[in-house]
């Protein structure tokens, strides 16, 4: 019965979600469960991201949950290509936004909304 009780609790908190805004070069913070204070380790996290803004950030984001201001583009011209990634091993955020006018201008513009899908590993 004790193990059944423990299993029920584990099942209730095994999957949790967190979120925040990040820009290029920042690292997604390790979350802490609001349910029981559990501190997640990096292998327990999976990231998905959405483009909040393709222009530049006006300052650090670092997981803020206040929608950050949208800055201007850092390159001249119009959008040529873009891409983003959150390293699933390290949580490092990278954004690449290129513009083109008379020539290509590559920047690290961009603000991502990162959703963290946390799933606890079995402890035994």
């Amino acid at each position, binding site marked *: 019965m004790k193990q059944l009780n423990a299993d029920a609790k584990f099942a209730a908190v095994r999957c949790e979600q967190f979120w925040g805004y990040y820009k290029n070069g920042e690292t997604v913070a390790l979350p802490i469960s609001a349910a029981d204070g559990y501190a997640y380790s990096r292998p327990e996290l999976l990231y998905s991201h*959405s483009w909040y803004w393709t222009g530049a950030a006006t300052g650090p984001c670092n997981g803020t949950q206040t929608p950050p201001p949208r800055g201007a583009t850092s390159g001249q011209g119009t959008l040529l290509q873009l891409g983003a990634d959150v390293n699933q091993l390290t949580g490092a955020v990278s954004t690449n936004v290129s513009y083109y006018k008379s020539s290509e201008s590559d920047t690290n513009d961009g603000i991502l909304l990162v959703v963290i899908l946390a799933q606890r590993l079995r402890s035994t």
Partner: protein
Amino acid sequence: MSLVQSATAFVAGTTLSPAFPGNVAAGDAIVVLVFQSAAISESPPAVSDNQGNTYAQIDTANINANEQLCAFIAPNCAAGSTTVTVTWANSGGSFAVILEYSGVAAASPVDAHSSGAAGPNATLDVQTTGSTDTLIAVCVGSGANLSGSISPSAGWTQEIAFGTTTMVCVWDRAVYPGYFGETIGIHNVNSAGVAAILIALFGGTPGPLTISPAPVFVELPDDTFDAGNQITDVVAKELNEDIKFAAVRYETFWGCYRNGETVVLPVSPADGYFYSRAELLYSHSFYWTGAATGALNGTQTRPPRGATSGAGNMLQFGADVSQLSGVVSTYVSYYASSETDTNDGILLVITHALRMR
């Protein structure tokens, strides 16, 4: 799966007509158990009812050449007042038990069955495979001062104890997949012994989970289950609620939205729970950077892709779903000779729903 109602009948002739006291619900199953004191070289009795349901024989058990127990089932029955008719060729003392079960698989409802005759107990076993099976055990015998018995008795409910000098007893219980060996008998049965049948019925499609209207995760301290502590019904129910809560705590939903629309509050298909805004987290993807051609409001039908609202090439874009209000905003800018800012865009929004404690 559960027993809804039952009826019994006895006759010295060749036809029995037990009727349920209430209407049978559509989709329920009717189990018919017949004991006949007649030459069993005859064909098994014919079973039918006034609703046109079709009965299939499950099993038989013969005490001797003149006494036979038969089991039949009609799954997925029609609704209405139901009278079952059992007819056999030879006249003799006979009786029938009819049982209405809800939650039985509508097709091929019998998972396993076994039968036997012995005295005073018959030990039968079945290997069940369904995750929502119910076992039905029936036993019949003759004698004086009769009473039924089943061993091991844990989990069984005696539903029927019918008759005096000849008694039929019926038990049932829910089971998980596994092997079940049951010793079924009747005390004080005469030397002829008993006939018994053990039937495992598949459960139907599971219904929605039942969770209290305001589900909460009940904290059960680990020492609740320390040795020496009594496991009360209250604690057991709280543990059951915790397990159900855990099963449905995290759910996901999705839909397409455009600028200015608000993500709808989802309702759980599992138990009908209405999520509050505070329990939701949104992620989104650009389905289209051009304009929407009309309202979307969470449609799950791929929306048509409209043209751009500004001249020139794309300059920058972005989107957000307010994590507080669910309001969707999209920004798409174009540049030709000057910048044009629009609210073009269609988002695919994933709603991550996590129930609060």
